[in-house]
């Protein structure tokens, strides 16, 4: 079977609602309270940088120290205007990076810096750099998977499913979806543990068993009742729900999907729209900051903030803890730019919006309860093309949160010309000094230490080892407590 994004999407038995009828244990407030006491009532926000973010111009070596990272970088990327080059050069100079230093690469000791765009601007001034300096941002270098795939479609599906070799038997379910739908987690078909700020359900969240809601703007999520003949409204509602309930019970997966989605959408339309007014009237200062940024990232994160505010203020039937937002435009084959230009603008948009969002959450008192993960489907070619970069392999992941143990984790990929495979960095496991960070170790750390999912359950139900494959080239041993021998990713 040809695996395309479409077919992957189609393979889900049900994207927004599952086969288990009736409310899950989460619908019981006592269970929710008990769970909150166990895992601290935690939130998880995924930010997807769509298109393949250039990792080498995201976390950039400033010097060589014991290795050759800076020299290799200089050789691969042409100088920009700041170093006497032209606008087609995308190299970040030492001066460009002076204000955004972070820690050093654990393996080579090379000083690392964030792309200057991550310094943020406007109400989000400081951006990721400020969050890093506060100790709340972890940079996990060299994240990837065996047999790197350079197709946007295939690679994003691999990141979303967490099943690079397709040997998990997971179909198209996402790694977060499998967590949400696991019986140990306890959500039912008509619960809504997750909200995606999007017109569709993101791949990470696909599963059968509970509901994920796709919302663009909460304010507009009201059900379009007929304003006329109000005395007939109850009959219409009864018929609407009856038709959808019968479709939900169908053996045809798509029919069941539409039946479930219609039911859940109806239910959510009763409770979610009010969150908009609640937020804007209760938090005008933060509301204005998102408005001032005037970017899609800021507007989307504000919707997440509204739901989280709804949860923290115990609004009825608002139980979502998991969120997803997307920022597009990272497929910088041409006109990428260096310290200014297209790539700068993308980073600036994300960092500024996330800073405002994170400050907002801190002000709500939930900074310690949130973990934000920023990822992209691959990095880009080490050697630039004429004025941009083609598709690449391993890339850095960011984790942000009050309980995230800030710092640099994992090894920078080896970008020496002789170490590249078709111009891309190579995935390594085992004892290699440039050992990569498998995405499943990142996911496993989050599941185990953030969601307190038992280690054995993760291995049996969510993430499958590449057992039987070459341990130097595949993920045959999990690393759910540390990343490549580093510190724990989460503080107690």
């Amino acid at each position, binding site marked *: *079977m*040809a*695996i*395309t*994004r*479409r*077919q992957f*999407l*189609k393979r*889900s038995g049900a994207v*927004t609602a599952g086969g288990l009828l009736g409310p899950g244990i989460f619908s019981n407030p006592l269970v929710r309270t008990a769970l909150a006491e166990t895992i601290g009532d935690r939130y998880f926000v995924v930010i997807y940088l769509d298109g393949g973010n250039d990792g080498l111009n995201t976390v950039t070596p400033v010097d060589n120290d014991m290795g050759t990272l800076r020299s290799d970088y200089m050789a691969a990327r042409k100088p920009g205007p700041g170093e006497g080059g032209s606008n087609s050069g995308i190299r970040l100079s030492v001066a460009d990076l002076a204000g955004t230093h972070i820690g050093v690469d654990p393996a080579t000791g090379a000083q690392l810096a964030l792309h200057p765009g991550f310094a943020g601007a406007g109400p989000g001034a400081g951006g990721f750099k400020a969050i890093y300096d506060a100790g709340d941002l972890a940079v996990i270098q060299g994240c990837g998977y065996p047999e790197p795939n*350079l197709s*946007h*479609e295939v690679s994003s599906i691999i990141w979303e499913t967490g099943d690079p*070799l*397709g*040997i998990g038997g997971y179909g198209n379910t996402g790694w977060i979806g499998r967590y949400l739908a696991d019986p140990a987690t306890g959500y039912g078909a008509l619960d809504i543990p997750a909200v995606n700020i999007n*017109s*569709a*359900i993101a791949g990470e969240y696909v599963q059968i068993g509970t509901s994920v*809601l*796709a919302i*663009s703007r909460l304010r*507009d*999520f009201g*059900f*379009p009742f*007929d*304003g*006329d*003949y109000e005395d*007939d409204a109850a*009959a*219409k509602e*009864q*018929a*609407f729900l*009856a*038709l959808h309930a*019968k*479709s939900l019970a*169908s*053996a*045809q*997966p*798509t*029919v069941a*999907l539409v*039946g479930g*989605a*219609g039911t*859940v*959408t109806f239910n959510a339309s009763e409770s979610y729209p009010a969150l908009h007014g609640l937020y804007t009237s209760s938090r005008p200062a933060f509301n204005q900051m998102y408005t001032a940024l005037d970017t899609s990232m800021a507007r989307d994160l504000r919707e997440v903030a509204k739901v989280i505010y709804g949860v923290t203020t115990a609004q009825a039937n608002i139980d979502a803890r998991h969120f997803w937002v997307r920022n597009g435009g990272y497929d910088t*084959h041409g006109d990428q730019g260096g310290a200014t230009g297209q790539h700068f603008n993308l980073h600036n948009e994300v960092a500024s919006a996330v800073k405002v969002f994170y400050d907002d959450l801190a002000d709500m008192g939930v900074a310690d309860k949130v973990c934000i993960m920023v990822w992209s489907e691959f990095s880009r070619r080490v050697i630039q*093309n*004429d004025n*941009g970069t*083609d*598709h690449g392999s391993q890339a850095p992941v960011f984790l942000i949160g009050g309980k995230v143990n800030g710092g640099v984790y994992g090894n920078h990929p080896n970008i020496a010309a002789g170490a590249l495979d078709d111009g891309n960095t190579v995935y390594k496991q085992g004892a290699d000094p440039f050992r990569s960070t498998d995405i499943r170790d990142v996911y496993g750390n989050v599941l185990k230490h953030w969601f307190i999912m038992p280690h054995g359950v993760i291995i049996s139900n969510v993430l499958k080892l590449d057992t*039987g494959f070459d341990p130097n080239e595949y993920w045959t041993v999990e690393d759910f407590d540390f990343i490549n021998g580093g510190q724990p990713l989460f503080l107690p």
Partner: protein
Amino acid sequence: MGDQNTPITAADARQVVRRCGFGIPVKESKKYTVDALTGLTRGAVADLFLSFRPKGFQPKGKDFFASHNKWLKFMLKAKKGYALQEKLVLFFHDHFATNYTTLANQMGQADALVMMGQQNRFFRKNCTGNFKTLVKSINTNPAMMNFLDTVLNLKNQPNENYGRELMELFTLGVRDLNGKVNYLQEDIVQIARAFTGWQHDIKANTGHLHPEAHDTTAAFPERGPKVIFGVAHPEIVPPAPPHNVGGFASPQSFIVGGEAENEIDEVTEILFQHTDTDGENTIARHLTFKLLEYFCYANPTKAVVDQIIAASGFVGSWEMKPLLRAIFVHDVFYETAAPAPYGALTKKSVRWPVDYVLGTLRSLGMKPKGTALQLQGGDFNYLYDLLADMGQTVMEPVSVFGWDWEESWISGVALLARYEFVRDLVTSRFSEAFRPERLIDLDLTDPGDIVDAVVAQLGLSDPLGTNSQLTADQRQDLIDYLTDNGANPTLDLQDYDTRNRKLHGLYGLLLQSPAAVLH
């Protein structure tokens, strides 16, 4: 089991009209009505729908909205085979996706409108023509050359964007129907080299080679001649099953000869010879699979794909018309879904938002007003906004993959947009333009008869079986609605109030139900 000589029933005719166009239009040329089609053979019906001579229409307005609306209006008014023509233009617009905003950011709005308009006309003129010609032309289509960076692909550092998508999306697919990879990164690099140095000429609506920017062996002796599918790939032999990375059944080696303009055509010729791990033509299977999903249902079996290809003689001829005809006379086209016992992965297709909106308007005999395509009533009821909320803005496919089909159309926000559209159209106080008395017989009084008449008029479902859109117990739900759970066993639809309350309500419920959302 039927074939091209099988006569079609009225239910079949409704299926053909819906699938070859948008809804069941109230106003249609006589030969193309359900009544006229009923009793004809499948072959005669297919020939009738495929007999159109493509029009030269090009949607181009003073700004994006004007262009967008001109195309929508053209689709809305299409009769006879031209509805099918537009459905095919939409298919190719998704298959060879380019996006107005990206072009406008690169080239300015004026050029972007010209390029998108030209490309749209090009799909229209060639939608039942030769697929290989289509691919060769898209190689030098200005909108495409801009969108996938062919114009930035220069000899010193070739840009791989187009080379990759040419194989992944337009011709082969990443993997074949057995899940084995069809090509490797090295093949992309080699194709990117062949495409270096091309620039577009928007006015002439084509591209031409600038030899000084083209990768030649003389300029880069170390790169060697351009070779695709010629590399030995020991690493892609599966190391241990089960494993999702496959390999070629046997090495396929083709050398791109010449070092000039003809290179990109040679690449295309080679791609059309590519065979998969069953030894079958890869492009034929990839395209047929996708067309079956578009016109019939998701995840058709390999056997069905191969039957269609064999019946059409597509391999070698590359002619779209016989390929489409083979689909239109096959049983799969006449099923309302995959026949039971269907696998868990084989299912109905979700109607595209454009099909849902335009089909509903055509089925109700309603049309939006003015060049802005505004529905009567409400504040935000331009078709553009409604479709955007449902997740589909034509000329703005969401990515290089086009739109995500199927389930991605079914999410909270996109479903609400469908419900709202229906509410505004038929059940709200603004809906005076909706005149059901023109659509069904108002002398009907039995609630079951009324439900059946509306279902048939909308072309939603027959027969009422377990595999149909609307099941018998859902029919009962609608009867319960009409009778207020039996309190009023018959209805007088001639009564203004009853009609507005219950008949409008019935239309609304049916159009909001899974039966209408699926295809």
